[in-house]
């Protein structure tokens, strides 16, 4: 149940970082956003909604739709389109309601 939605025009040789999406390593170019990386994965969804558990993926890429919310380095409901990738960053898809602890 997956489809590749977006792909990079080229594979850059240098300045790559590795981040982890639900524990699975993903390559990213320095300076790009976590949401952009999510859209290149086989499952592009960043979260499921608190109301009906529907899957949602990055939609606006400019901070106004809040569909790209994910748990980034332990912080829930982070707008992943506004976060720049870092080496070793831990990204988890956010399922349903965020927990108050994180």
């Amino acid at each position, binding site marked *: 149940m997956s489809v590749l939605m977006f792909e990079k025009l080229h594979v850059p040789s240098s300045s790559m970082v590795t981040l982890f999406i639900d524990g699975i390593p993903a390559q990213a170019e320095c300076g790009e956003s976590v949401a952009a990386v999510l859209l290149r994965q086989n499952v592009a969804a960043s979260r499921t909604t608190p109301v009906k558990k529907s899957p949602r993926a990055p*939609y606006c890429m400019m901070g106004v739709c809040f569909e790209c919310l994910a748990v980034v380095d332990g912080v829930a409901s982070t707008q992943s389109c506004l976060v720049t990738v870092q080496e070793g960053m831990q990204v988890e898809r956010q399922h349903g309601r965020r927990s108050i602890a994180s």
Partner: protein
Amino acid sequence: MMRQFDVVVVGAGPAGMSAAIGMRELGLTVLVVDEQPTPGGQIWRAVEAVAPTKIGELLGDDFRSGKEVAARFRACGACYEPHSQVWQIEPGWRVLLKQAGRAEAVFAAQVVLATGAQERPVPFPGWTLPGVLTVGAAQILLKTSHQIPSDPVWIAASGPLPILYMAQLLRAGGRIAGWIDTSPPGAWRRALPWTGVAIADAAEIGKGLGWLREIKRAGVNRIRDISHFRASGDGYLQELEYVQRSGKSTRVAASVLLVHEGVVPSIHMTQALGCTHGWNPQQLCFAPRLDEWGQTSLSGIYVSGDGAGIGGAKAACIRGEIVALGIGHRAGVMTAEAALARAAALRKKLHRLLRLRPLLDAVYRPRNDIFSPADETIVCRCEELTAGDIRRALEIAAPGANQLKAFTRAGMGPCQGRQCGYTIAHLVAAAQKKSVATVGFYRIRPPLKPLTLGELASLAIESDT
């Protein structure tokens, strides 16, 4: 100690950068905060890194021109803090920020809101499915990640941005499965009153026609006379169905669908502050009411750029420069005569840059059904409320937009009405047989961006410092 500046600028796009440069020339202390990692706003996203590359070349000269403005901004001496979000502004002016997990209050005598625009929400059945994105989102992915849709992409859109993006995508080697041109029929008839302007601005019109030629040469399937369309799929976009006015229905497989119906000013901050707004009937949006210097109804709060009404990047730069003069005069570092004299030339330029806008607004009017979606269509994405849910609630007690929020939770999710505000306003107006201008927008409340309790707790209280 709380940091204090003559001016805090919110947003480092064309308007924010130009205002900062102008105010620094007048010797004011300036803090510029911006959500993004680098200056440029949405139009010039990642321009410093991308302009000199092949991608910069295919994005075009209007994009690359941002590099020079960004360089002047970097050198202007303003304190520039990227990756910063403003979540509230209180009288005083006390600007509440969050940066790297910490909250901070900064004092400013004057504030410039240069928060630009957002794409107009475009509700249709299936628009919440993964795989449906805005055209602006796809263009940002091209600018910042050199990333294009893997399969031939479907585009259901109207306006200059989709035409530009399609041309850029083709130059990048991307493929377009089809363009569902949603602009209502009769575009040229609507454009007729503006023929004079079109001739005067032939160069700008020529750019648009050039993009259209590129799209045509590539053999893109342009589908017109659309009555409605829907996206469907199990957990993500799989199929697109469009129905033409003739009644002919077509179903196609799709993995990415890009949508766009123009842009509207970002009004969340001015709404939260309680600035007076007016309805713009040409651009079908609310915008803060401003004086000749860009000052809102609140003394010391200025709006610059597309947040004042859609005008594009060049106009945003000029508006930024005009705001700088107004603030310089108000701060007492410039006489009224000097400010007026310098502003006169800028206003002339601004007038020239804005004269084509009514034509664009007329030609690319958004399709009507985004304001009156079918009952099954989700209108509040966050709370998953359909147009039918809203219409049923509206039958009960004829509530206004804010009461409706309390009844249904529409507009209470994380986007705080950024994706449903206009749809709700139109549904309320239709139910009450009033104009949208009368019905108004949601009351917007802080925090304007998600804030953790930890971040809130990190805020130093004045008495502590």
